[in-house]
């Protein structure tokens, strides 16, 4: 093995470091570590916030997708006076409803649910086996699919028509339920957006504060660079490059930790078998926005640094 003389080695090192040369000693300070940790935490939160945003969107989608354009027509099993209808009576009422539905233009399709289907639907509430007795009164249910873009007026007319033919029939449009779900998830998504905005603002303020502190620490050196003919842009580039490195390091770590956290949460909810939550499948927009979070945060840091330095330098001779 050839031993490189120290002098030469030093020169090589000098060249390597030359690429990462700082005109101001920005890279060796405790403030740096503080800022990296802060940015990492912010990125961690941003990852969770983003995931919350997308999960809420998926949730709303899942809860509503099955319901849009879907109606349920319910034929009660007893009259207003409380008399149970006979099987024949039920069949004839169902027939009447079906004939209206078949001829109604806005209806795309309809399915009369069999006794077994209905039984399956109510079983969780009433317990298995309780319905084996065929005599147990069950309402008639017809699931109706309307054509996309059907207007509310048209549905009201349909309801009217069915009411006159089948006394006590109920047409459930799920509309109020839909509205509530969308309003609820919308509000939560708005909260998530606020959280993301707060994170961005905090990052900007922290970077600006750190840059101002460093500027006053290195004021003499900054002045010297000015006296040697450095432009404001030249000096701010020093800070921008530094902010970029810190921002990338911090946010990459934060987003990585955040993603691990999400995996853990996903695993926990998977174990719980919560039917309300959508399957924890990552959507493409979520993957893209999570992957670009470090870049966006680093970019915010760079812009904050640039703005702060240029403003401060404009006040210097």
């Amino acid at each position, binding site marked *: 093995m050839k031993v490189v003389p120290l002098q030469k080695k030093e*020169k090589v090192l*000098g060249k390597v470091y030359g690429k990462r*040369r700082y005109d101001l*000693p920005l890279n060796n300070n405790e403030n740096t570590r503080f800022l990296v940790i802060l940015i990492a935490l912010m990125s961690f939160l941003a990852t969770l916030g983003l995931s919350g945003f997308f999960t809420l969107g998926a949730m709303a989608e899942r809860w509503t997708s099955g319901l849009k354009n879907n109606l349920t027509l319910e034929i009660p099993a007893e009259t207003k006076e409380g008399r149970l209808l006979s099987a024949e009576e039920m069949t004839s009422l169902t027939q009447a409803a079906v004939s209206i539905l078949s001829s109604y233009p806005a209806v795309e399709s309809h399915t009369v649910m069999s006794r077994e289907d209905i039984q399956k639907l109510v079983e969780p509430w009433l317990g298995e086996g309780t319905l084996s007795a065929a005599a147990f009164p069950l309402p008639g249910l017809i699931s109706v699919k309307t054509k996309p873009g059907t207007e509310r007026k048209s549905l009201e007319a349909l309801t009217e028509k069915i009411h006159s033919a089948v006394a006590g029939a109920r047409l459930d449009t799920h509309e109020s339920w839909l509205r509530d779900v969308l309003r609820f998830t919308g509000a939560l998504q708005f909260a998530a957006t606020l959280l993301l905005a707060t994170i961005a603002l905090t990052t900007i303020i922290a970077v600006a504060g750190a840059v101002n502190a460093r500027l006053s620490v290195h004021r003499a050196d900054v002045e010297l660079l000015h006296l040697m003919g*450095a432009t404001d842009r030249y000096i701010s580039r020093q800070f921008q490059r530094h902010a970029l490195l810190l921002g990338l390091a911090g946010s990459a770590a934060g987003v990585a930790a955040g993603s691990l956290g999400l995996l853990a949460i996903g695993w926990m909810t998977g174990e719980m078998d919560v039917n309300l939550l959508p399957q924890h499948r990552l959507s493409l927009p979520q993957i893209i926005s999570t992957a670009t979070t470090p870049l966006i945060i680093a970019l915010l840091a760079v812009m904050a640094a640039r703005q702060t330095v240029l403003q401060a330098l404009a006040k210097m001779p």
Partner: protein
Amino acid sequence: MIRFEHVGLRYGIGPEVLSDINFTLAPGSFHFLTGPSGAGKTSLMNLMYLGRLPTRGLVTMFGQNINKMKREDMVAIRQRIGVVFQDFRLLNHMSTFDNVALPLRIVGKPEKEIQSNVSELLEWVGLGEHMNVLPNTMSGGQQQRIAIARAVVTRPRLLLADEPTGNLDDEIGERLLSLFEQLNRMGTTLVIATHNQMLMDKFPHPRLILSKGILTIEESKFNLRKKLEGLF
């Protein structure tokens, strides 16, 4: 190149350090600036390298009134001026090499050119062995030579040197003075603040003498004799 008209300078609410300074330095001239300690030599230099604006009077540098100068124009003028600060003002977080290379990097010279120019210059001032050493680990004289190398590396049109030989022995002092003369011959205008009587005697250039805030110009005896010889 440099024109001062009725220039006064005070720091804050203190007394006037410079009062009614008047002089003109032609392009390509070489002047010593001398006077007792505290007379205001450094302050005068400060005005010349645009480190401060005068509190009164008119300073014209490279044909431009510095009071009315825009920021961008100041940058262009500062890039044409090399300064050796009395207290060196080296950056202690970077190597000797990088300190000297800094003014070249600021003006965006290609790295290859920087490598060869800076190495050559450092060899010349006797610091070839210390290129990768941090300045604050070196002696006062060595640091002074780094400061000088940094000031001349861009071949400035105007070189302002504040006590550049204060920490150097006579031999190196003379060697550097002859470097300055060489620059002067290539067109650089020089102002060198110094107390060193021997050096001023050896290199006969006109002197700007500051005393109690007033500046007088004294032609060197050598030049006077030459002028007298020309008369007869």
